[in-house]
């Protein structure tokens, strides 16, 4: 029995989770374009808001995992905590990129420019730069204890620095729309669409982190590459398709 044959008809948990996340994101797209009403002032451009804010929240969540993983690593030297941090940093950087790009696409028609040096924009860009630096430290430090320690320090400083940048800049200049979720400025359909999109995006982020964690674990050699090798197969298959 070949490996492909052994797996035919049954999917790993990772594949199922990934498929579920994709389906959820498609459903969110349906809600954004089919259910949510068009904005009276901004028109269809406003539909960017749902994914833009959701991915920003997902990115913050990822970086919180980086902070926690780093702090736990510095206390206990747990390799798993470090792997969670590593996985979450990469996923967080992806979601920060999505946030920035979608924000710029929205800003061009609404503000007339892709970029302005606003507090929220500046601190998000700094966030991106800090975690890109985090991944660079991971790559350039000696793998193992040194990379984990140095990255943990960068992750902790990065997480503290971003609110600091935000508040220090916000005292002098701001243009980004204020919070609309908490002050009840949205009609219920928009609010429902937003919370649904946010939930789907958070699931997607969690699935991505879990898959990335598994990749990191395999790379570290702490988990076998094959998923649950079937022990019932005893006879070696000499066929050409039996290449492992």
């Amino acid at each position, binding site marked *: 029995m070949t490996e492909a044959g052994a797996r035919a008809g049954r999917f790993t948990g990772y594949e199922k989770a990934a498929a579920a996340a994709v389906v959820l994101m498609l459903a969110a797209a349906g809600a954004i374009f089919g259910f949510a009403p068009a904005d009276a002032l901004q028109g269809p451009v406003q539909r960017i808001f749902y994914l833009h804010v959701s991915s920003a929240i997902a990115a913050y969540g990822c970086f919180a995992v980086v902070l926690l993983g780093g702090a736990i690593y*510095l206390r206990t030297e747990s390799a798993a905590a470090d792997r969670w941090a590593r996985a979450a940093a990469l996923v967080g950087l992806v979601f920060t990129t999505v946030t920035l790009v979608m924000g710029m696409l929205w800003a061009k028609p609404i503000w007339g420019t892709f970029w302005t040096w606003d507090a929220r924009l500046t601190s998000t860009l700094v966030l991106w730069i800090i975690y890109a*630096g985090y991944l660079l*430290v991971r790559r*350039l430090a*000696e793998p193992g204890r040194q990379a984990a*320690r140095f990255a943990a320090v960068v992750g902790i400083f990065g997480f503290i*620095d971003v609110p600091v940048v935000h508040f*220090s800049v916000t005292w002098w200049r701001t243009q980004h729309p204020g919070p609309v979720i908490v002050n009840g400025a949205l009609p219920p359909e928009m609010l429902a669409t937003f919370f649904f999109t946010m939930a789907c995006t958070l699931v997607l982020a969690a699935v991505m982190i879990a898959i990335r964690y598994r990749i990191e674990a395999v790379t570290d050699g702490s988990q076998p590459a094959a998923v649950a090798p079937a022990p019932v197969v005893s006879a070696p298959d000499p066929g050409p398709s039996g290449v492992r």
Partner: protein
Amino acid sequence: MTGAIAVALAVARKDLRSEWRTREVVPALAQFVVLALVIANFGFQIDSRNAAAIAPGVLWLALVFAGLVAFGRAFAAEREQASLEAMLMTPAPPAAIFAGKALAAGLLLVVCEAVLLPALALFFGAPLSLPVVAAVLLATIGMAALGCLFAAMVARMRARELLLPLLTLPLWIPIIVAGGQAVQAAMGSGGGYGSALGLLVDFDILFVVLTSLAARFVLDD
């Protein structure tokens, strides 16, 4: 506690003495900041009308890059001689060793500021006043703490010249925001000097405390 302070002062004294004997960093840095002013002249097309408005920005650009050079050198000699490991083998606390290194590197940057600020006054007509000096000196504290922490980190890594600015500059931004505001106010464009200076003190305290907590993980192997 007094022991840790004595260690820090001894390390700082050693670094400053070594700099005094070799005169390696300070003359190069002084030349560097004057060069930065020359480059700024060509980049901004400076004349007598716009010089005062551009001066604060030029000050921070020159200072930030001079700081990167100064702090990058702070651990270079230790790395070349492998003497940091020897220092860490002593019972001295790593945080105290780090504090000494940061103190010495910060003082070298202060010497460089003693060249930068008069040069800025001379070439840009930017008034050199006590408020400007106070803001720059307060910013130096936070910059030295963060800069030396990451200099110690990259000293053990590949591509360290590349990595130091990438890690340090984004974390310096709060200091530069507050410092930039303070210097602009002190040079006569915009207000808010007092609040900016208070913010600088807050950031100094935050970053000095954080870096002294993190120093152990960066130095100790």
